[in-house]
């Protein structure tokens, strides 16, 4: 491996501006993880207008910081309040909160911070070796491969998203449809523009992401009765003891490796990784009955895994140009706005961007470790900020922020429309994540499909005769059919059981 660009990457990170934005990113991420209401995807979406004026590397360093910073912050609410701030911290709740009730909240937070740091670091090192390999492999991909890859990526994200699978796939199709609005790139025909000039150039990514994730989430939260939150005043003794560290070292190691691999899979990501790591530790343990009652490993494993996965989920984005989850889709959108199209050529053509972003994660993780151990008290205090005060601030930032992109009032209208849509979707069980992901991949997918069909002279079996696109499409079919078959089997079994019950 050529080391020079890697070292140059460190040079990029150590520029004061980039260091500053890395710090801003991780602090914002940590806050977002702690504060109720907005998740990382929403926050990154709302901050998109800021990134337009700055360098691409700097922008992505900050956005990435928000993403992995939120993984650290989410732990705090899981442990102290039994409220997982992020989906990826759900399993941390069991042992984390149990430890907190035994007066060992500090231990849980400390071990989680150390685990997150180690998981993140292991994952960055592995990413540095794996990503160039994947990118090299993908350099020969043609339109058919990209068609298959984009289809599979969208489907996988929709499949593992929260809520109903069918609804998630519908949301994804809606995203694909929205991507066709505007002038067709091949023929110049106007599609779904309703003779509106502002729509002729297509829908902008920024108002869609800000509306669906940002405003949609705020409106959705309006309907929630607020529970009284009792944050503890102080958390003592955050430094994990040597015995705790020894006990959880295996869990951290295994969690990091597992998290790294699950994070690479599209749709895998942090949530799946934390679940799998917890389940694995419990199965391996000689005393599984301790899990759920305050086992340190039960905090260490999922936290290492979710951070490792958050880091490695950058691999598909930076090497294939396929975002692995909703947050990555927003970062993908940010890169497109900057005029950078992520893909296999990124490592070679934009080494400063690639290695700058990757190496910034080392710095970011160190900053987060500092914030999560000595400064954790500060963040615990922030738990008291009321969501009712944050909501109007976020709304105004969104409405005025979206205006600053094109200086166009039409965009404010658009963001409100998509805010309403985002609310309705969440309310009715449609995850907006797949929509946004499909929207950013929509034009790539349509382009590659049309190019492939021209290439194959209109014969769709051409996809199957090429080894890579064929394999990917077979996988696609497996993912489509597997849940259908399993559901059918389960239904038959349950009707059988009901019949036997009735007979008895």
């Amino acid at each position, binding site marked *: 491996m050529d080391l020079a660009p890697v070292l140059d990457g460190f040079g990029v990170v150590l520029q004061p501006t980039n260091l500053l934005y890395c710090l801003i990113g991780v602090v914002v991420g940590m806050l977002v993880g702690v504060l109720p209401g907005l998740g990382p995807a929403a926050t990154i979406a709302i901050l998109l207008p800021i990134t337009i004026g700055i360098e691409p590397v700097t922008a992505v360093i900050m956005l990435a910081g928000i993403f992995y910073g939120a993984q650290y912050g989410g732990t705090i609410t899981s442990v102290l309040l039994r409220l997982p701030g992020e989906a990826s911290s759900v399993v941390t709740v069991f042992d984390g*909160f149990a430890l907190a009730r035994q007066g060992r909240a500090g231990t849980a937070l400390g071990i989680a911070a150390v685990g997150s740091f180690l998981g993140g670091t292991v994952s960055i090192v592995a990413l540095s070796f794996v990503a160039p390999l994947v990118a090299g492999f993908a350099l020969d991909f043609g339109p058919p491969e990209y068609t298959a890859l984009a289809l599979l990526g969208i489907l996988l994200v929709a499949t593992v998203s929260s809520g109903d699978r069918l609804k998630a796939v519908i949301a994804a199709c809606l995203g694909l449809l929205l991507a066709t609005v505007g002038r067709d790139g091949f023929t110049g025909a106007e599609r779904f523009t309703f003779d509106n000039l502002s729509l002729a150039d297509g829908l902008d990514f920024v108002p869609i992401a800000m509306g669906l994730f940002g405003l949609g989430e705020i409106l959705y939260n309006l309907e929630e009765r*607020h529970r009284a939150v009792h944050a503890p005043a102080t958390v003592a003794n955050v430094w994990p003891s040597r015995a705790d560290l020894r006990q959880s070292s295996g869990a951290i190691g295994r969690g990091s490796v597992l998290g790294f691999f699950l994070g690479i899979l599209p749709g895998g990501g942090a949530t799946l990784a934390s679940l799998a790591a917890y389940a694995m530790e419990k199965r391996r343990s000689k005393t599984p*009955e301790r899990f759920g009652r305050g086992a340190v490993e039960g905090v260490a494993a999922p936290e290492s895994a979710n951070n490792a996965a958050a880091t490695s989920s950058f691999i598909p984005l930076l090497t294939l140009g396929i975002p692995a989850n909703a947050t990555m889709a927003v970062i993908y959108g940010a890169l497109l706005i900057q005029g950078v199209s992520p893909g296999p050529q990124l490592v070679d053509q934009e080494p400063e961007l690639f290695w700058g972003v990757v190496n910034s994660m080392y710095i970011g993780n160190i900053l987060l470790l500092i914030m999560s151990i000595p400064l954790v008290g500060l963040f615990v205090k922030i738990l008291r900020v009321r969501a009712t005060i944050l909501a109007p601030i976020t709304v105004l930032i969104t*409405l005025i922020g979206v205006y600053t992109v094109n200086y166009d009032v039409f965009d404010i209208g658009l963001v409100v429309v998509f805010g309403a849509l985002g609310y309705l979707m969440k309310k009715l069980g449609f995850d907006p994540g797949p929509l946004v992901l499909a929207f950013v991949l929509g034009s790539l997918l349509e382009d590659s499909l049309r190019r492939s069909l021209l290439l194959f002279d*209109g014969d769709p079996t051409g996809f199957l005769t090429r080894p890579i696109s064929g394999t990917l499409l077979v996988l696609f079919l497996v993912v489509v059919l597997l849940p259908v078959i399993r559901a059918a089997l389960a239904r038959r079994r349950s009707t059988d059981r009901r019949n036997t019950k009735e007979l008895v």
Partner: protein
Amino acid sequence: MTSSAGGAHVPGRPGGRTAAGATPQAGPGAPPEEAAPEEFDLEEAIHQVEAEEHEGRPPAAGLLGNLVVAAAVVVLGGAAVVGSLAFDAGSARSPEAGTWPLMVSVVIVVLGLGLVATARRTTDAERFGRTSWLVLAGLATMVAFVALIPVIGFEIPAALLAFVWLRFLGHEGWRTSIVTSLALVVAFYLIFVGALSVPIPHLF
């Protein structure tokens, strides 16, 4: 007839546990229950945490609501099919502007029909109720904001929006609401007009 016939396979979402002030109660009560069965308590426990997260949310929608949602998806897909046919649909050999939208719209219609078929087992949609008016009010403030900004600049609409959200949607006190909304507008003015010179319509 509220829950479907068998009752065996319906993972009840929010409605079940609405005892007032349940949070502290659910906390201590839960772990022993979780730890009791040996093998698959992980899934159970996750369901429980998710159910608790859904506490305080409106109840799940009924069969009719789910059917309306499914029908809306079908209608939307149908409209998109009609729209796509208006362009040149082309063929596999020479894909035109309408080919791809047509394919996607047809998939939406099919999946929408799938939603109709599974409407009875759907539990993840929420019912619209009294709290939904809050959302409508919130949306109304935003629509007013968009409508007023070209006419009278952003300051007054922003202050009003913040005030409505704080006082009426967030139930903050009068004084907090007035002071915070004014302070917010001053801060936004200083940042966007003062520091960044964004050409946003403004009064002063």
